[in-house]
């Protein structure tokens, strides 16, 4: 046995790094999502900037040891501002052969590879389709390999807690976390707090997890297998109170915040679907905020109820993913026609059809913009990152209320499950939203439900208000009076009015920001969840002195009013998207610029390098 005194005698050197990317990988049942979350928490609380990328199988609990059952959680933590979970791994924790097999290709040569050697049994090797034990051969020669009997050590550590073997084994993710926390010099308090909070009521489990975590940490400290420790300094983030938010959490909080700032009840009608379900789940916890969550029988019922609730005066929202958006389109048409405010969240996933439900993609943009019959315009926004979801759903609510319109907000699977530190805004930083309800007094003689204000918005008149009795519906309406009207000229007028109202929002949204030279060779343009990779790739290129600028878009309909000018200021425009070229289509049609797409449809976000490589090629004059 190695004893503590021996270890203390030889202090291990600490090496500074600016940015580290690490991935925990193991069986679905191995608790990798938890280990990853806790490590990222610890890093964030320590003061790093952090970006994460969970990746799990479609199966709920795939058979142990299989390749398709591997679950991974990647964390990028840094002493500077970062915007993606990282391209390549500096360190990989592989809890079994299947995890090694499916993740090794992402580890940099010379990277740290921590392995639970107990899991490398013949049976597991076979399930991972290994002919020979990789721990024996030369396959892993290029890496810093650390074989640790994690299962055995965990069982040993918790043996006095009275847990069954099966229960005890479940703590091995915390042992692994402990090891990694030691290696990267992370504080143990955050995971320890979390353990006590979560398991406080079952002391044996609380104790076991605590012991496993500490044992892992001590193992690093004591056993001499690691020649060096690493340290990533705090990032210089703007001062404030921070917390970690996933995209879906941010959407939930943003909706509650918007409803509160508008002084309205929040009505959220939804039908569960990956990867949007967490918004429903999270909101259903906050009933004390006058939040009504309605799990409907399907997506059509969800949005239909949202239309009813909006008519009756709630801040109303629904959330779904692609297949659900398809189903909602008919009712969205009704919302456009009745000009009722609501937020429609679409968390995109790999399509078409059921596609890759647990993977990310950006392929619902065109559907959001023009996926309904008739001329049926509505504003479309997108969030750039997990934390950005908070601000953007708030913004969607602002536009919906001010312009009396449904608003689509696009997120994606990567943003939804990924997490990053979020500076909690003060109450004074959250703008007030001011729905103005019509009242009998203000409208003079007869109430005109389709009279419009300076923004072309019609009045919101709540049932229960005497004197404002009126009917809305999906048939074409007469201008101003809102009566059913089949007159040819009126239809033309109303179609144009609906269009103009949405176009008019352009004057009420920020100009498109561009980072880099205001004119030049190349603009990299993107939207939504690819923003981080575009930023990172372009900053790197700029650092190399390349003539490249970048812009990432949150407003997709209408476009920011300077977009045309921006586009015309560059010789070449590159649009990386996780689809076959949807923003590309919209931009080309609108501005007639010969932009070029970089299109990835693999269920995964861009690597920085994929965009970086294309930038280099273009700048070297290589055509695509």
């Amino acid at each position, binding site marked *: 046995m190695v004893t503590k005194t021996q270890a203390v005698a030889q202090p291990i050197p600490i090496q500074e790094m600016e940015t580290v990317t690490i991935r925990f990988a193991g069986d679905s049942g191995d608790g990798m999502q938890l280990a990853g979350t806790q490590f990222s928490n610890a890093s964030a609380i320590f003061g790093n900037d952090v970006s994460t990328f969970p990746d799990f199988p479609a199966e709920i609990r795939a058979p142990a040891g299989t390749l398709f059952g591997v679950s991974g959680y990647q964390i990028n933590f840094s002493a500077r501002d970062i915007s993606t979970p990282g391209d390549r791994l500096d360190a990989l924790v592989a809890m079994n052969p299947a995890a090694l097999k499916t993740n090794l290709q992402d580890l940099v040569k010379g990277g740290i590879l921590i392995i639970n050697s107990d899991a490398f049994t013949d049976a597991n090797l076979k399930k991972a389709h290994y002919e020979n034990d990789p721990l024996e051969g030369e396959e892993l020669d290029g890496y810093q390999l650390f074989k640790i009997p994690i299962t055995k050590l965990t069982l040993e550590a918790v043996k006095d807690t009275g847990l069954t073997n099966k229960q005890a084994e479940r703590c091995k993710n915390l042992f692994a976390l402990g090891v990694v926390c030691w290696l990267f010099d992370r504080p143990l308090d955050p995971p320890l707090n979390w353990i006590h909070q979560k398991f406080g009521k079952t002391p044996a489990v609380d104790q076991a997890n605590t012991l496993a975590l500490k044992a892992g940490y001590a193992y690093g400290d004591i056993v001499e297998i690691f020649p060096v420790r690493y340290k990533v300094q705090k990032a210089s983030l703007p001062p404030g109170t921070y917390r970690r938010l996933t995209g879906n959490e941010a959407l939930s909080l943003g909706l509650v915040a918007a409803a509160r700032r508008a002084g309205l009840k929040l009505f959220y009608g939804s039908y569960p679907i990956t990867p949007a379900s967490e918004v429903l789940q999270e909101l259903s916890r906050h*009933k004390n905020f006058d*939040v009504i969550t309605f799990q409907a029988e399907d997506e059509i*019922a969800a949005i239909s109820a949202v*239309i*009813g609730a909006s008519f009756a005066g709630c801040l109303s929202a629904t959330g779904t993913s692609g297949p659900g958006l398809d189903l909602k389109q*008919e009712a969205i048409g009704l919302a456009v026609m009745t000009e009722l405010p609501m937020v429609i969240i679409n968390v995109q996933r790999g399509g078409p059809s059921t596609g890759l439900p647990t993977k990310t993609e950006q392929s619902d943009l065109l559907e959001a913009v023009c996926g309904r019959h008739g001329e049926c315009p509505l504003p479309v926004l997108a969030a750039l990152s997990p934390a950005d979801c908070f601000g953007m759903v708030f913004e969607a609510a602002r536009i919906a209320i001010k312009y009396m319109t449904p608003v689509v907000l696009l997120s994606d699977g990567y943003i939804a499950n990924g997490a990053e530190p979020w500076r*909690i805004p003060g109450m004074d930083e959250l703008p007030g939203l001011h729905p103005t309800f019509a009242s009998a007094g203000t409208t003079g003689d*007869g109430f005109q439900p389709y009279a419009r204000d300076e923004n072309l918005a019609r009045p919101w008149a709540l049932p229960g208000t005497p004197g404002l009795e009126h009917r809305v519906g*999906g048939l074409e309406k007469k201008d101003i009076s809102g009566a*059913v009207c089949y007159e040819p000229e009126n239809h033309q007028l109303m179609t144009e009015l609906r269009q103009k109202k949405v176009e008019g929002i352009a004057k009420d949204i920020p100009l498109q920001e561009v980072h880099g030279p205001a004119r030049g060779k190349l603009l990299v343009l993107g939207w939504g969840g690819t923003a981080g990779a575009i930023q990172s790739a372009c900053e790197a290129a700029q650092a190399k002195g390349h003539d490249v600028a970048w812009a990432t878009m949150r407003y997709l309909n209408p476009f920011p009013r300077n977009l045309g000018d921006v586009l015309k200021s560059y010789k070449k425009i590159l649009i990386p998207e996780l689809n076959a070229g949807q923003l590309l289509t919209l931009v080309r049609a609108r501005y007639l610029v010969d932009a070029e797409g970089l299109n990835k449809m693999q269920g995964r976000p861009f690597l920085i390098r994929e965009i970086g490589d294309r930038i280099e090629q273009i700048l070297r004059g290589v055509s695509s």
Partner: protein
Amino acid sequence: MSASSVELDVLTAKDFASDQEVRWCPGCGDYSILAQIKKVLPTLGIPKEKYVFVSGIGCSSRFPYYVETYGIHGVHGRACAIATGVKLANPELSVWVATGDGDALSIGGNHFVHMLRKNIGLKVLMFNNRIYGLTKGQYSPTTELGKRTKSTPWGSVDRPFNALSVAIGAEATFVARALDSDPKQLCEVLERAARHEGTAFVEIYQNCVVFNDGAFEYSHKSQRADNTLYLEHGKPMIFGKEREKGIRLIGTHPEVVTVGKGGVAMDDLLVHDERAAEPTLAYLLSRMRHPEFPEPVGVFRCAEEKSYERRVYEQVEEAKKRLGEGDLAGLLQSGEAWEIT
């Protein structure tokens, strides 16, 4: 019409007439339903502005335009779902659904059954003309087997739904049937529906003069006594011109008997119970169809049960009691937070 109703103490049918020209075919049964609604609404003690009428698409679904209250003319089949949102958003409102046999039972069947099971406090009037009126005469889910319609030139091969059986199978707490041709009985049923806490479902037999004229002729005045059975809670089931016939139960099967004949006494007759613990009796009644049986009209079932919206708002109150009125700053700061200075 522009006078606000708060100032009015007594509303009349006229107050509920909107300024829209009524556009049903001359002679359509919908007119009778509209007239009864305008008669009943002012009697319920609810101010005009607290009514909301929601519909889908169909001739029947034009209904909201003709009532001077708040209204939503929705999309086809979604009336129940839209109305659910209205009611959940503001349970103070008296929310009515006007729908057709196609709107409620064909495309809208799912929302219909889920609304019933949840017991959402809506008054649902289904105008059953056994046909698609607005799209000009295709068969509906209540059209009889064998019937020739625009889309079944060889006769329908679809077994029809029994709307009340569907409702009862879906956990309905209030189920009734009324006739456009019997305004008095229609009024009574509408009043009962209005007073029910959960979903009140009323099937109204409605004559479509253009595409299915005479579908319910057997229930019209001259033949009504023999072909319908007027249900009254706690009363034995008697019908017939001379009130000479009745319904007796054999096991779980009803049979038509003549009181006084074959030793059948009044006491042998089935007694109606709207509030039975389980809806089996209501289900049994829903199976009685013309011409084998007189068709029951009136309230089949009226069970007391908390409405969905009440449960929802009780939970909001519970949450406030347990966690306190929501504090936004506190919520945003919840979870593990840290300072950067």
